[in-house]
């Protein structure tokens, strides 16, 4: 309760160009924005880049922040849009493949690396994680955002709508299709487990 006016005061100071106040706002929100970006992109470097991009965009459009919604919701929305923009840029100019192809073998190595499970052995945790991440990254960024916010960050539909910047109905619809898609992608994994 005591923090809200303080944050409003920081926002007001930041609007007038006070970078120290903005620095304090970054410190308060950077962890959550980073976590959200990481959930969306599954890459530490990308998540840090998105966090930076989010705060830079926020600084530029601080005059348009009316204060009706919480600052955190506004920042989440900027972060989600930044992730979507990054995904679109990469779709049109792909830099790296999401799925890892066959491993290169160092001619000087003594052992041969292998990928995939040994027949009969159970799927190890790293492999499970890799397959879940790959499945999540196959969802569109808009669908991924609602799944991440609902299932990993435990937000309500209303909070998700505010943070993604769409209606409640759109959130429910996206969540429905995203869940179906994700279940289809992970069906094999369920069977193996």
């Amino acid at each position, binding site marked *: 309760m005591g923090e809200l006016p303080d944050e409003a005061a920081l926002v007001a100071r930041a609007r007038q160009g006070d970078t120290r106040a903005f620095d304090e706002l*970054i410190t308060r929100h*950077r962890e959550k924005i*980073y976590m959200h970006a990481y959930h969306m992109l599954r890459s530490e470097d990308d998540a*840090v880049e998105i966090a930076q991009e989010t705060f830079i965009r926020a600084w530029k459009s601080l005059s348009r922040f009316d204060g009706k919604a919480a600052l955190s919701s506004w920042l989440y929305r900027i972060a989600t849009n930044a992730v979507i923009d990054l995904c679109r840029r990469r779709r049109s100019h792909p830099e790296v493949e999401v799925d890892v192809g066959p491993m290169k073998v160092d001619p000087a190595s003594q052992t041969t690396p292998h990928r995939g499970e040994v027949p009969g052995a159970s799927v190890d*945790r790293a492999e499970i994680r890799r397959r879940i991440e790959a499945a999540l990254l196959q969802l569109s960024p808009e669908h991924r955002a609602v799944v991440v916010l609902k299932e990993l960050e435990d937000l309500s539909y209303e909070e998700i709508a505010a943070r993604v910047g769409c209606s409640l109905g759109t959130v429910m619809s996206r969540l429905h299709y995203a869940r179906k898609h994700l279940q289809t992608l992970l069906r094999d994994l369920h069977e193996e487990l």
Partner: protein
Amino acid sequence: MKNSDDREWEKTRNLLREHLTVPPLTNPDFINSRVLEAIEREERPRPAASGWSLRWLFWSGATALLMAGLLTAVLMPREFGLRSHDEFISQVISARAEMPQLSVTGFQVPDGRGVVLWMEGVDYIPAGEGVR
């Protein structure tokens, strides 16, 4: 009682929550410093440069307009005002000849002290001919 879809999804959700962990932010202050650097970089040159060029553009435009207005006000009435006959050095008084290849132009000085005839198309004026 949950239906089978819900149970299926619960399994998937548990799988997501168990395996999709987030590594801690190793150097959180890095984000602050990078953001503040970017803000400083973007704000420093732009307002000065754009402000200066806009002011410069405004004042040079205004000065040019003022100069054009002044020149117009000072010079134009003299150029287009009515002139008296005295201001001319000479004036054409006739341009008539009986031979088609001959052209004759006469100039009269305004105070009437002399006339100049300019003839083209003849090598000489025969002695028997007079200028009328």
